[in-house]
């Protein structure tokens, strides 16, 4: 039991946003992370489930409401087919069936977990985030995770609809475990030539971010003969830290190894 005073279920965004501004108040979506907060100052939870935000809309880009569960990426026909089935494959590595049935896209993005696989995968797809801060705004996911905001409500994310190939690799001790490091790669590829490359590394242990040096290096090169060099560059340039789970040096090794696996995966697929 969390010792809180109120569990509120507002019906409109405006109401939720106002409530959210109160002292010692947090939003709750799937509740998975909220439930483990030990903060004794927390007094109030503002549940966002009554706000809808459950839509999955097709168009030039795909809109995914913040309350959509991670499991939908595996079962929804549209989401599971995006980018050659990328999300269906990737989400299998996230938590467990039960966790995916509970965790929301909004909560996963908003919590800005350093080890989030979801953020790494979405960032590789160049997703953007729609927020409510008195009005609706949209920012790239990259920017969103870097910036500090106050009490914004994530209302949706947008995934550009395109033919890019995406690959995700996660390294963890056991198969039901958080990442020691994860890598997401995205690109267009034609006749082995790469363009529009994204390379994202998460759980460094800092939050996922794009590795621009490696992206630049890869653009316009041929995939099959740039894997080794890209991996070397990754190892040399990436900024990582050590923690009780993994030493920094090994994170560097992993960043290179996972990049290679991801690129080989794309090579095989394309």
């Amino acid at each position, binding site marked *: *039991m969390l*010792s809180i005073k109120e569990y509120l279920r507002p019906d409109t965004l405006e109401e939720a946003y106002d409530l959210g501004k109160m002292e010692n108040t947090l939003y709750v979506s799937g509740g998975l992370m909220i439930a483990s907060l030990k903060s004794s100052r927390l007094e109030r939870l503002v549940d966002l489930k009554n706000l809808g935000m459950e839509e999955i809309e097709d168009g030039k880009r795909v809109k995914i409401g913040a309350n959509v569960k991670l499991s939908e990426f595996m079962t929804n026909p549209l989401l599971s087919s995006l980018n050659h089935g990328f999300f269906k494959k990737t989400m299998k590595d996230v938590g467990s069936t039960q966790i995916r049935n509970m965790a929301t896209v909004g909560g996963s993005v908003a919590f800005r977990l350093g080890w989030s696989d979801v953020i790494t995968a979405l960032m590789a797809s160049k997703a953007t985030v729609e927020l409510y801060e008195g009005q609706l705004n949209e920012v790239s996911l990259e920017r969103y995770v870097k910036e500090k905001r106050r009490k914004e409500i994530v209302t949706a994310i947008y995934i550009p609809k395109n033919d890019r190939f995406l690959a995700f690799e996660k*390294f963890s*001790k*056991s*198969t*039901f*475990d*958080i990442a020691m490091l994860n890598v997401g790669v995205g690109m267009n590829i034609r006749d082995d030539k790469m363009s529009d490359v994204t390379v994202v590394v998460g759980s460094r242990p800092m939050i996922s971010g794009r590795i621009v040096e490696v992206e630049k290096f890869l653009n316009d090169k041929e995939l099959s003969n740039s894997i080794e060099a890209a991996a070397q560059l990754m190892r040399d340039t990436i900024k990582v830290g050590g923690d*009780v*789970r*993994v*030493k920094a040096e*090994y994170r560097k*090794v*992993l960043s290179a*190894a996972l990049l*290679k*696996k991801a690129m080989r995966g794309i090579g095989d697929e394309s």
Partner: protein
Amino acid sequence: MNVREERSVATSLSSDKNFDVVNTSVEKIDGYALVKGKPVFTDDFDVPDSLIVKILRSPHAHAIVKNVDASKALELSGVACVLTYKDVPRIAFTRAGQGYPEPSPYDTFVLDKKVRYVGDAVAIVAAESEEIARKALKLIKVEYDVLDNIIDYEHAMDENAPIIHDESEISGAYDPKHNIASHYEMHFGDVDEELSKCDVTTEKTFYTPNQSHAMMEPHAAISYFDANGRLTIITSTQVPYHVRRIIKRIFGVESRVIKPRIGGGFGGKQAVHVEAYVTAVTLKTGRPARCIYTRKETMTASNTRHAMRFKIRVGADKDANLRVIDMQGLSNTGAYGEHALTTFMVAGSKTLPLYNKVNAVRFMGDIVYTNTESAGAFRGYGAPQGAFALDCALDELAHKLGMDPVEFKLKNSIREGETSPVFKVMGEGREGVEQIVGSCKIEECAIEGAKLFNWHEKRERQRIEGTKAHGYGVAFAMQGSSIPAIDMGGATIKMNDDGTFNLMIGATDLGTGSDTILAQIAAEALHTSVGKFVVYSSDTDVTPFDKGAYASSTTYVSGNATKRAAERMAREILKAASEITGESVEKLHLENGKVISKSGKSLTYSEIQTQLFYTFKQRQLEVTESFVSEVSPPPYMVTFAEIEIDLETGKVDVMSMLNYVDCGTPINPLLARGQVEGASSQGIGMALYEEHIFDKNGRMVTDDFFTYKVPSRDDIKKITVKFADSYEPTGPFGAKSVSEIGLDTPGPVIANAIFDAVGIRVNRLPIKSEDLYFKLNERGLTP
């Protein structure tokens, strides 16, 4: 193929052993209740008016409790009591649930004025609700005098190391002034001389880690006075009788201890954990008290496997005769000496006799105190630690000899009809017993296992391909069946007029299925079916004594007691039938729940007991028998494994594992197989995933399932189990133990397979991908 088919071949070979009930996979008798989710675990019992008990635990690894101020907590409405060391008896005891007198030192108090690890108990709080109890914990102010600590056991005996046990009441510890809880040494022959004569030798140091039992049900106990004022303790324990005895020692109070279904133990519940706390509260307040540990408490403040270091030297002549084994060990018992001496001795006594042809053996070492969670009993009980060092060292020796390790280990291992001097020298905490091995099918395990696994063909394969390396390993193991001449189990059988029997056993089913297999043994001896047995187990007021579930003894000791009781009941039934029918006993026999006479008459068990109740020579048929073994027949096992190493990351996956087991007659092949599969996966966890990480203050960082990774479903690829055709003459219907041995081999077999794959000898568990990667890198094996 299901287990029944697999066995049928072997069973048909043992022509003289035609069993009806034994050696069949009958369904577990508590299975229905468990799959229906019936309220059968300690936490499921609602005892009205219970106080909720919580423990205030030390944030320091080593400190004097200068003052405890509970006044604020006591002011909180709903707090019933806060107990500190001043409020509980100052009686030194050991939490270890062992036969009496225990071989573990008396170095523990319910609460003490000194705390010896992060998590050690400081105060007991009882309140009307969980929430109030939690709040009260926060309101207790404790002043500590923080002392220097020892977290790394390799430094426990350093000069100037702080003394962990300096209290005067301690008894049974070897040299507490130097943090040595226990010491042991034995030898025969001269190891140094023998080594000097060897053509090939190997010397290496091996490390095995602490490991958490991680049973799914946390520790739990409820205590209350029953209607007649008898203290009753419902507890998730493997040792109800030892709990009763220890509670009496501490508090001077008699009690009834009931073990309901328990959610796994693996040795972790072979100790007094929660019982003393709830008892203290019930005695103080007169009210029922309930304490359910959190996962964190279960991880940090119960027990862990003893971490051990072994420096091992082995040598052989050029004809591959193993001549000498020398093992010098160091074991970490943590803050208290629970099972300190005995687990250490088992590291030798359950490994060394396997190689009985050597000329010289030495086994010695110290078991030291540190400021970490107390170690305790854990499935394998030292044998996995010893086996890791010994089997890996022999693997290396085989390699140096240019010999197939299967061949080398088999050539030097024990055979049926042989003995080992180690049996006599090393027991558990004292001398052992001489024994001739009555059943040993290690040749079948090794030779047939190698065929099944495709060992010879696989070893011809290319090991490194692209970014992956594959390796094939083998490991040999033995264990024991019971602690001979010490551990006793009893069984009572009562016949009912409806043709059923009550089987009352002290034996403790902790999920293993012992209630079921004991009923099978009784049913076999009484020529009836398991369905005719209503089993009551582990209630100290109702069932006969049994040492409890440990030391691989239930099937063997409690099984023999049950068999004896059933055989005596059979004689009682025949006698009664003879009296009723007037035919001599020789003309009667039991068949299918009836007594049949040569003249063709038959009487059902129900008819007999009905007559004995109401009309004829009236009496209740009931018998009690006990069993203590003179020997501890070892089961044997040979494990083959294939591993894959990702050379880019150093990650190791166990692709398949074959366990070929000689456990005598598997009383229930399906349940026996489950024991081996489960032990294997715990061993894989110990070898690859499970790790205690401490911060600099000695706090365990990996104190939950989020950070302490037991293997999950996707981590376990394929575990195959085969049983050798074996019959142990002293066992109940030929049975030996099967529950622990599966944990002995995963560590060495994985390490050996890694060596086979990439030539790197791993000497430390768990094998971390990080470490392996950098070793691969040093050798230029990373792509």
